[in-house]
């Protein structure tokens, strides 16, 4: 949030009555009309797409739902001063007693070679084997030539 984004209420509420000299009135009216015409000319280009509107709306409103699911109320939480003084939370090195090594490798059975079964390869192998059997049978005379 930038400080200059906030509008000072006292300044914003300042009286805006400024008389317009009569000789500027035609120019004021002409510019009014030109502006209205320009906005109409650009109307299609300056309309957001429906998808963008719906998507952005949902994203922004999900901010509330996220707070509810987190159990918060949606306002920023600023940590106050800690009741524990800095001296009390010093980290001290502790001695670590050496422990006997633990064998964990026996827990898992050694894995064998992985065979990936592929239906297409199996069909191809079956077809080749069948062809070899038939050719072998013809060659050996089991099947008359």
């Amino acid at each position, binding site marked *: 949030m930038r400080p200059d*984004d*906030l509008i000072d209420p006292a300044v914003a509420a300042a009286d*805006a009555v400024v008389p317009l000299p009569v000789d500027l009135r035609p120019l004021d009216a002409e510019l009014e009309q030109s502006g209205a015409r*320009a*906005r109409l000319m*650009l109307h299609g280009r300056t309309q*957001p797409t429906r998808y*963008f509107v719906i998507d952005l709306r949902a994203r922004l*409103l999900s901010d509330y739902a996220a707070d509810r699911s987190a159990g918060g109320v*949606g306002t920023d939480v600023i940590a106050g001063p800690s009741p524990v003084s800095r001296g009390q939370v010093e980290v001290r090195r502790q001695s670590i007693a050496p422990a006997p090594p633990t064998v964990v490798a026996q827990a898992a059975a050694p894995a064998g070679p992985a065979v990936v079964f592929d239906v297409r390869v199996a069909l191809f192998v079956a077809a080749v084997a069948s062809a070899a059997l038939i050719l072998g049978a013809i060659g050996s005379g089991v099947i008359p030539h």
Partner: protein
Amino acid sequence: MVPGYFLRLRSKPMAPDVHVSHLDSAGELDLAARAQTDPAAFARLFDEYMPRVYAFIARRVEDRAAAEELTAATLHRALRAVRAGVLQESSFGGFVYRVAASAIVDRVRRGRRAIPPGLRASDLDEGTDREVAEAIGAEAAARAFAAAVDRNVLRRSFEAIPDAQFRVILVRYFDGLDIAEASAALGCSQRSFAVRVNRALRALSSALNNEATGAA
């Protein structure tokens, strides 16, 4: 001077316009306050302002994706402000137009030089960088507004007045914002905005007279 004819006394633009707010200021303040915890209140503000803010940006940023990105960033900041409760006494509409106007200028700044992450683009401004960025950011709007002006002499007069005054003319007449939103977009008080419009019109009128004298 005609009694009763005042600059921007009305809260709505004269010309029929689809970009007119339907919320009064009290209703808007109430919605902004409730929106801190009530998603329905924020949804109402979103429905009211999102198309108008998008249009404001799209008149200046011709690339649709970039306009969507800036609109989303603007409304994200508005949501954060509402939820943090910092808009209790301020106009939601004024806030979003102010953020949108800044976002457009920042985009120009980032297009002109590399801004390291974590830095505000305006932090690296030097000399007239801000004025130049504001002028570039208003170029597309200036072209579109000039195209809708009937008189050639008036169109030429636009170029004879200072950029800052022409931007006041753009926000006032081209965008058709009400005074609270327009003054917020330019970062000044409502009275200051009305005075600036008055001065810009005077300068434009002088430029018109000069054009007419030169033509004669």
